[in-house]
Each structure stands twice: as structure tokens, then as C-alpha cells.
């Protein structure tokens, strides 16, 4: 049985490390390379980098930064933000980041995803779905960093992605982002039941129990978190942290045996 993956998500904005609340008010936390160094020493399961301005402000993909990360970090690495062409993907993979996460471009052009999966293999192509509940409680998919409502149904769209053969689907709950109120378990459970591929839960995690619920109740394959790994205490002081691997192992094995 795969060991549950616990993944810090690092948001980048103009080469700085930031954290948002409900995709808004990015708070500057510091130099992302410092955070990466700490996570590397902690031997984290995986790292995800998302550049939150690359698409909305049409900024360049931070290739130099990614290169620096890949030269020092020997763990699974994924990058998302502003990926629009097969050439973008080729360059990122060549640097040594083995997974790209596509969001806005997936809604616009499914053929692009199809071609990317064909050229680079399923395992290199993940799609992240930014999801928000509307006034009536219906889930809707957003693009451009949460700015544009695509009006698409996340579950229906995820099934299409599953058929096309993407390697992973990351669900990002806009409502829960940065709130530390726990994952949207209902959304994660619906998504996990609908697709074959691994689902990464993201948005709202505050405790190890949240991880347990997302994995063992809702069926996610991996759990991602931002605030939990970069803030400490109720005043949200910046402190990069990650549970000890031995503690994670003990926690999950205890939960699994129940």
C-alpha cells in the first residue's frame, strides 16, 4: 500500500514565497529557496510549486528558480503556473522537475492536455482544479487563479481528464484555501469516487487528523497543504515546518490499523 504522500504547496509571486487566503491577499513570507532548503532537510515526500501570477499577469515561468531547486532537491517536484505550450512542459521536465500542473489551459484546450499526455506520459502531467461552491451549494470550476468562473462541473470535467489519461488530479478548494478549517471532504470524496487516477487534496488543512480524513474517509491518494507548513500559532507567525517522518509513519499506521 502506498504510503500517504504529504505535500507542502509553495505559492510563488514575483520570485517571493507567499500564502493566500481564499486565493486572495497574498502575504509575503520570504525567499522560497530558504523554505525549499528546510523542506529538503526534512525529507518531505514531495513539493509542489504554484506561481499564482504567471497566468493572470502573463508572467514568464520562473525557470531559473526551478533549476536551482532541481539541482539541490532529490524528491518528487511539481510546478504549475502559466504553462501554455508543449515547449513549456519540455523545458520544465528537462530541468529535472518531473511533473507539471496545468490549470487554466486545461479548461481552454483539452487537446493540449491530450497531446501533452501522449508526448510526455501520464505521470508527468497533472491537472489542478480550482473549485468554489456557488450560492446554491453547487461546485464550480474557476480559472486564472480563481478569477474566472468557467461554469464547468468539476466532477464531469475530472472524468474527462481521467479518460484522457492525466496522471493526477489536484483539487484546490478556493473556499478553504488558507482558512485552516479542514479539507472539503465532500468534494474530495466525490472526486475520488469519480476517477481512477490519484487525487491530491488541497485547501484547508490544519492538522494531521485532516490528512487522515482526506485519505481514509474521502479517498484521496495524497494530501497537500500550505498554511499548515508555513505558519505557526493563531497569529500566523511565519515558521516553515513539516512533521517528522517517523511521526507521520506512526500516525498513518495507527490510523490504518483501526
Amino acid at each position, binding site marked *: 500500500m502506498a504510503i500517504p504522500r504529504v505535500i507542502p504547496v509553495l505559492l510563488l509571486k514575483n520570485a517571493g514565497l507567499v500564502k493566500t487566503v481564499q486565493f486572495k491577499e497574498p502575504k509575503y513570507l520570504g525567499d522560497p529557496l530558504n523554505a525549499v532548503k528546510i523542506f529538503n532537510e526534512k525529507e518531505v515526500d514531495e513539493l509542489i510549486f504554484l506561481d499564482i501570477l504567471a497566468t493572470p499577469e502573463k508572467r514568464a515561468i520562473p525557470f531559473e528558480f526551478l533549476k536551482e531547486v532541481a539541482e539541490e532537491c532529490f524528491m518528487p517536484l511539481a510546478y504549475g503556473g502559466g504553462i501554455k505550450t508543449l515547449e513549456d512542459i519540455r523545458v520544465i521536465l528537462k530541468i529535472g522537475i518531473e511533473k507539471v500542473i496545468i490549470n487554466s489551459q486545461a479548461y481552454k484546450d483539452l487537446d493540449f492536455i491530450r497531446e501533452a499526455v501522449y508526448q510526455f506520459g501520464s505521470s508527468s502531467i497533472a491537472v489542478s482544479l480550482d473549485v468554489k461552491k456557488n450560492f446554491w451549494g453547487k461546485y464550480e470550476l474557476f480559472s486564472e487563479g480563481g478569477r474566472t468562473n468557467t461554469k464547468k462541473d468539476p466532477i464531469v470535467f475530472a472524468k474527462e481528464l481521467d479518460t484522457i489519461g492525466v496522471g493526477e488530479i489536484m483539487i484546490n478548494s478556493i473556499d478553504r484555501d488558507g482558512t485552516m478549517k479542514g479539507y472539503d471532504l465532500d468534494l474530495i470524496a466525490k472526486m475520488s469516487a469519480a476517477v481512477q487516477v490519484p*487525487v491530491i487534496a488541497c485547501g484547508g488543512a490544519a492538522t494531521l487528523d485532516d490528512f487522515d480524513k482526506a485519505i481514509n474517509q474521502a479517498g484521496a491518494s495524497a494530501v497537500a497543504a500550505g498554511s499548515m507548513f508555513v505558519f505557526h500559532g493563531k497569529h500566523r507567525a511565519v515558521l516553515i515546518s513539516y512533521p517528522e517522518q517517523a511521526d507521520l509513519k506512526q500516525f498513518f499506521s495507527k490510523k490504518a490499523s483501526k
Partner: protein
Amino acid sequence: MIVIIDYGLGNLGSIKNMLRKIGFDSEISADHNLIQSATKLILPGVGAFDQGMKNLEERGLIPLLNKKVLEEKTPILGICLGMQLFTNKSEEGTLKGLSWIDAETIKFDSTKTDKKFPIPHMGWEYVSEKGNSPLLQDMYEEPKFYFVHSYYVKCKNSDEVILTSDYIHEFDSGFQKENILGVQFHPEKSHKYGMKLLTNFMTNF
């Protein structure tokens, strides 16, 4: 010279990065002269089996690799798809594999279990050692590695299996037949465990 064979598939940069980190220079190349002069070879690969065999064929690498590996006994490490290409055949395709080891590549079947096992199998997994391969010398306790695959290798000769792992069922996650070594996981993405394994490949073979 250590050559990481570039046949148009996979994440070659991170293997070179890790080798540099542990103190070994390497070249990413499909150049016949360079491969001919190599003292160690690594065949990585992410992608489909037939595409892999086709790309090796198109680059004229199959006879050269057969000579290097089978006659000259140059140590070679296959990683992920690279490992699978060493087998006789794969359920993923119709082309014949390199057949350097008596094994087959089989698709994970998650329909026979009640529990949900997403495919591809993606994530960290513990491995169990079988025998005493120098590839695993002085390995850290409870070694775990990062896997990404939808197919797995089944060896005919159990004494060639050096590592097993468990996903849906037990499968062979590492093999060795003299100078021919393969691992299903990605050592270049597996922190200190991967560094140890690659250091062993560099120094013990």
C-alpha cells in the same frame, strides 16, 4: 565515463543532478562513441514500452547496448521504464523487449480488489531486500523509494530478484543478473535512500 542514455524519453536531468551531488560526473547522450567508451550505463525512461523500444531502435542503440551489456559486461542500471525494457515483453505493447533478463512486464490490475488502488501507482513505498546485492550495501533502515508506474516486472528466476514491494500485491521492484540491474522506482527522486543506491551502483560495480 558514466553515460545516461538519452533516447528521448524521461527525466534525465534529475539523474545527472543526483550523480553530481554524490560526486560523479556523467553525460546525457545517445552518441555511439560515448556509449562505447562508457564504464557505467544508466537507462532511465518515463513513457510507453513500445515507444521506448522504438526510440532505442531508431537511434541504432540496440546492437551497441547488447554488445556493451552482454559481451563486455558493462554495468547498467535500468530505472522505471528502463528496467522494464530489459525484460522479454510487456503487456503495454507488442514489441519485443531487450530480453536481458528472463522476466515479463505486467499491468497492474486493480479490478480484483475491493479497496481502491489508483493507477498509476504513484508515491513512496517501502522495499524488502532479497539476497545480498551490492546495490543495497549499507542501505539505511526501512528504505523507501518513490514509484510512478502502471506496469510491474515479474522475474522468472526468483534468485535474480533483489527487492520486492507491495501494491495491490507483491511485485519485483529490483533485480540483478550479474552486471544488469534494474529498479522500478526513481532513486533520483528518493532523498538519501536514492543517493545511497546510486553511490553503491557507482562504487560496487
